[in-house]
């Protein structure tokens, strides 16, 4: 399997070298850098929201920055601006590397990415000006969503073309997840938008559609992207073969079959069978989780990790993934937890801990290779800041949520006291978000430094020679 060992030379003589692939994929720096900009914006918005949660008088006179706007804006900027965009870029690169083909469709990818960013911008402005649709994770108003979907069409087709352009040979699990995710996202997004905004269904059916979409967005789209990254990078960095292909197969198909069924919790005014189905699915989803975690953990055990500090990102991401699976079961079976901070804690652990850390690690790995420059500045620091940030944030919300629930179910504690006693945990979480902001800025700074160095190298070689890319010493080959 070519994907697990970077140095293994391709068997087909026609296949390009990894360095060649990397330099062909340089255009992916555009979605990566813009996704990191959204990441920083998202975390700054999350910081504002977090501060407002315990100090409601801060920035109280601005309608744009009220908590009801900043919270969803931060979430959407993370999911659509960062995770989806960076996930697509990393997925494209993984497809090229695994398929041993140079990147197909550089120009459409660049255009698609520009329009994607435009879509996210429109969507966020819509949220700030009060034009939200009012549904979780689908807040972007018409203009934003349409641009987003259209540009996704371009990016998705490019990704499929890249999958088609692969050299013959056995496919790798990452490719399955990416292929599935590429279809799941547009299906989920269009179905939900059609049924919620364009031709809205009536009454609580909206809850059914929105719960189905939220669950799909997390369990199918983001999980697939995250797992594709982990399945590719963990064996690669530990320098080992994937422990078991059959385990990966079981995990993939059990996720595909049961992934779409979770997401309804007790207490929602929906038919009881839907809620039972959701709870049962959240238990069955422990199967793909355990299979993947066991598979990758054993892979790590087999390998002899290189000195690269990147394995930590993927390891913690895997741990966060496992914890989220377990907490989802808690959420489904302890209904009182759902409306407390606990639910949001799990959500953020999933977004930053699992998807975020996996993508940060991937971006730190990709950036030097795509730019052909070396610079290890900030890798360690941003990793520490992100890991401790999410740890603090999630721990504060999870523990705070459990205590909040304990007081909430005690009818004798007035509601105001419940919230005021939870304040301490919210303050702690603000500290966590602050660390995340720092980590995100450092990540962006490192990638920008690499891009600048790359541009300078390009310029200087342009002046002296007509063919710049040949001169660049690709970092990927050196490792």
């Amino acid at each position, binding site marked *: 399997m070519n994907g697990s060992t970077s140095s293994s030379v391709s068997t087909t003589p026609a296949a390009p070298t990894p360095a060649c692939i990397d330099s062909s994929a340089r255009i992916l720096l555009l979605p990566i850098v813009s996704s990191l900009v959204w990441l920083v914006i998202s975390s700054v918005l999350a910081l504002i929201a977090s501060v407002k949660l315990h100090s409601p008088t801060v920035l109280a006179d601005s309608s744009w920055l009220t908590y009801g706007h900043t919270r969803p804006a931060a979430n959407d900027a993370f999911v659509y601006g960062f995770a989806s965009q960076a996930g697509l870029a990393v997925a494209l690169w993984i497809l090229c590397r695994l398929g041993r083909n140079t990147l197909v469709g550089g120009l459409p990818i660049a255009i698609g990415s520009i329009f994607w960013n435009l879509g996210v911008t429109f969507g966020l402005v819509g949220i700030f000006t009060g034009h939200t649709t009012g549904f979780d994770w689908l807040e972007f108003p018409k203009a934003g969503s349409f641009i987003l979907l259209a540009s996704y069409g371009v990016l998705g087709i490019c990704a499929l073309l890249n999958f088609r352009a692969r050299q013959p040979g056995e496919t790798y699990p990452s490719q399955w997840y990416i292929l599935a995710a590429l279809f799941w996202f547009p299906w989920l997004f269009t179905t939900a938008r059609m049924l919620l905004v364009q031709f809205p269904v009536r009454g609580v059916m*909206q809850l059914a559609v929105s719960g189905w979409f939220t669950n799909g967005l997390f369990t199918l789209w983001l999980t697939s992207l995250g797992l594709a990254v982990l399945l590719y990078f963990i064996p690669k960095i530990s320098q080992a073969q994937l422990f078991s292909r059959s385990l990966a197969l079981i995990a993939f198909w059990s996720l595909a079959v049961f992934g779409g069924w979770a997401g309804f919790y007790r207490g929602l005014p929906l038919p009881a069978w839907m809620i039972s189905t959701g709870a049962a699915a959240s238990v069955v989803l422990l199967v793909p989780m355990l299979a993947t975690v066991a598979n990758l953990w054993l892979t790590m055990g087999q390998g002899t990790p290189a000195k690269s500090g990147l394995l930590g990102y993927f390891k913690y991401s895997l741990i966060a993934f496992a914890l989220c699976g377990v907490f989802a079961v808690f959420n489904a079976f302890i209904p009182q937890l759902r409306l407390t901070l606990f639910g949001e804690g799990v959500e953020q652990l999933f977004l930053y801990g699992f998807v975020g850390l996996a993508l940060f690690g991937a971006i730190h790995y990709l950036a030097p290779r795509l730019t052909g420059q070396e610079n290890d500045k900030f890798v360690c620091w941003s990793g520490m800041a992100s890991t401790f940030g999410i740890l603090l944030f999630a721990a504060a919300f999870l523990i705070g949520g459990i205590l909040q629930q304990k007081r909430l179910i005690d009818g004798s504690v007035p509601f105001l006291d419940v919230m005021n006693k939870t304040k301490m945990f919210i303050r702690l979480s603000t500290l966590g978000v602050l660390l995340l902001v720092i980590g995100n800025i450092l990540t962006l700074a490192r990638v920008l430094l690499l891009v600048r160095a790359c541009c300078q190298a390009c310029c200087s070689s342009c002046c002296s020679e007509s063919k710049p890319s040949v001169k660049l010493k690709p970092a990927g080959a050196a490792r």
Partner: protein
Amino acid sequence: MNHGPLIFLGILVTFVMSWWGLIFAPQMQIGVQQNASLVDGIYPRPRAGLAEQGHHVYVANGCVQCHSQQVRQESYTFDVVLTAPGTNNEIVIRALGKIAPGINAGAVAAAATDQKPQTILTNVPQGVADDAQARLKKAGATAKTLFIPLGVDIARGWGSRLTVAADYLYDQPVQVGHSRLGPDLANYGQRAPSTKLILEHLYDPRLTMDKSLMPAHRYLFETKPVGKKSSPDALALTGKFAPPAGHEVVPKPEALQLVAYLQSLRASTSLFEAPASPAPQP
């Protein structure tokens, strides 16, 4: 598994299955739900114009980020009340004595009317309640079994029954919420204070509740110089909340719409699928 088409087919089938199961099937089951016909009209009714506009203000400001609109019920119990003692007082008193030895049977039987039902049993399982009702019927009296929903939300006074599908029939978008950073609002209209107080709470929640964590929504209000006569809507603000001299704080139309919406929030009509608690707890 090396073929793209195979993976594609697999994920298409699994995706359509979840769509079929969780969207198409429920749409057939509850998507065509109509208003319930009750003795005193239909439920629910569409919101009045101002309240409907207020719903959009509620959505636009993301109130749903902190406020849920759902009342949950954890269990239930039954009460039995006597509504008419019938004609044979002696047998009824004897029956009452057997059913509930603790009560003053004579006084209860004498006082029971349709308007003033007298409680005989509280907090009993359905079997006991049905049995008591049957015995009293045999004795010639009329008794009613009351369904009492129980739960933390109900104990907190956030509603007198659980919220069900019918309550959301006219909401677009439905704002059921995912977080309770603020209190539940499903029945806010029932416990809401006066319009003035809600407006003050929106202007700055610390005005009405010292320790409130709710953000101020001052941008829904306008501070403007007092004209010839002060506006009837102007908020009576004093101390540190007071506007500069010669100015007054007047709610914008959005604020008034939002208040109308909040006052319209009631999900307490007793329904077949969700009987309300007869006497809402304070």
